[in-house]
């Protein structure tokens, strides 16, 4: 199996509202950043391009096609798109390289969620006969999941608040974070509930923005002469759409993906997990088998800014940055999609 090297990553600031910036204008600064990290000109200099986005977020049909204007696609390039977080665009790109059809790939994800009412937009990804017509929003589904954990005494509200407080503390050092700062657990717990048992602070703030990454074969990385981190394992698993048939207090799909990705084959110094709700970080930590030796979400994770369709890719990017800087030598990145952690991707990153 061909090893995959990550050679460049960039993420925009998490903005509650990106204002006038359109798709192209959100994406282009991140593409310029990753091209310049490697010394490339534009998408003509990579073998494959794959993006992740969802047109429903901003209600603009074919927004993902408009995004192609940021690439430099003349003459025509090999390009693909997933209507998912860009972590899955990364997965497709890895397959492309492993099949021998490309030596390098550009991946990007973007979203402008502020144009619509995200929890309601996402209600329409649910079962079209039984759930979508009820307009059950995703915050409410996560709230029911949290209550199950609380009432089975698998977590406490204090533990949830601790997740939030730690994320905000880490967010102080993340220049792209939307939220960050000292906040005490007691302060968080004193706030009223939003969709009980969740408080507003338990829910990731929705942000507009984009992220981009360049991957390649290790040979190509050496040819380019840039530092890189290796993806030594990656897998993704999905659970049934029927929420009543899932064990919502666990993440079976994350657990399986972690096994096949080889998470436990070495020490996990750092883990970046995509947990849009505080209780989900605890579920994921357990499913990934993480202990006290692992720093979870040193970037603050999505609790300090959630770039829909790019946050999963950013989790890999955050681990990549820490490996290339020499801060750590092995870490785990996780991405999620769907209600209550339905679909999960786990990747192991190691120093070259």
């Amino acid at each position, binding site marked *: 199996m061909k090893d995959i090297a990550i050679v460049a990553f960039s993420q925009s600031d998490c903005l509650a509202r*990106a*204002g*006038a*910036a*359109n*798709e*192209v*204008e959100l994406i*282009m600064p991140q*593409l*310029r950043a990753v091209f310049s990290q490697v010394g490339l000109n*534009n*998408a003509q200099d990579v073998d494959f391009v794959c993006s992740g986005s969802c047109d*429903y977020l*901003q*209600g*603009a049909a074919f927004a993902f096609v*408009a995004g*192609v*204007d*940021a*690439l*430099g*696609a*003349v003459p025509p390039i090999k390009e693909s798109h997933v209507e998912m977080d860009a972590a899955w665009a990364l997965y497709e790109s890895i397959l492309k390289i492993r099949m021998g059809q490309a030596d390098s790939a550009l991946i990007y994800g973007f979203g*402008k969620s*502020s*144009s*619509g*009412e995200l929890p*309601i*937009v996402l209600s*329409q990804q649910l079962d*079209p*006969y039984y759930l*979508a*017509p009820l307009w059950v929003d995703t915050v409410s589904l996560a709230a029911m999941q949290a209550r199950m954990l609380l009432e089975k005494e698998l977590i406490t509200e204090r533990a949830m608040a601790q997740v939030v407080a730690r994320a905000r503390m880490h967010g102080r050092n993340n220049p792209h974070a939307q939220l960050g700062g000292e906040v005490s657990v007691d302060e968080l717990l004193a706030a009223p509930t939003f969709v009980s048992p969740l408080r507003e602070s338990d829910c990731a703030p929705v942000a507009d923005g984009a992220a981009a990454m360049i991957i390649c074969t290790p040979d190509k990385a050496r040819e380019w002469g840039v530092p890189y981190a290796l993806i030594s394992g990656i897998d993704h698993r999905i659970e049934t759409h029927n929420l009543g048939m899932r064990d919502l207090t666990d993440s079976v799909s994350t657990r399986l993906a972690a096994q096949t990705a080889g998470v436990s084959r070495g020490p996990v110094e750092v883990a970046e997990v995509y947990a849009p709700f505080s209780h989900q970080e605890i579920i994921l930590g357990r499913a990934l088998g993480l202990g006290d030796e692992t720093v979870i979400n040193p970037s603050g994770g999505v609790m300090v800014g959630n770039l829909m369709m790019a946050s999963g890719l950013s989790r890999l990017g955050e681990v990549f940055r820490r490996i290339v800087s020499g801060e750590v030598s092995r870490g785990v990145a996780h991405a999620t999609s769907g209600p209550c952690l339905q679909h999960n991707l786990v990747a192991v990153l190691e120093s070259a």
Partner: protein
Amino acid sequence: MSEDTAAVTRIETPIYLKYNFTAGSAPARFLARIREGVLTGQRCPRCANVYIPPRGSCPACGVATEEEVVLPDKGTVQSFTVVAIPIPNNPIKPPFVIANLVLDGANLSFIHLMSECENSEVRIGQRVQAVWKPSSEWTHAMDNIRYFKSIDEPDVPIEKIGKLPLSGWEG
């Protein structure tokens, strides 16, 4: 009564979602100028192509376009079609002409209506000029231009369409 006993086989599940669309930075600058009756394109710093309406990037080079270029309201027909069916909720009566038009000094066409011309005589290379609404009616919209009309200038040969200078076509 048969409706009440037949098995359900289809359901109507309409989805209505409310959004607030925001024009991009480049389109917003374009729209702010067209509100004043000025057509503004943007030039690619790499290949020097001029785009109107601008989207903020050169799709060929993948770089931001920031230099603004004021363009004349004269142009050339790059392609066209005669439409025989009405546009829903639009007062324009068929048959009418929709054309790909390239303004002088620009390198990419946009779509607009043509009128004050014989539909049967519309042709590729034909010279056209904008017919504007009264300035009191101008808004942030491309339909400040009511339509383009045919003007009495020699046709542009196909190989020159989309490559004319700002000064226009000398014939």
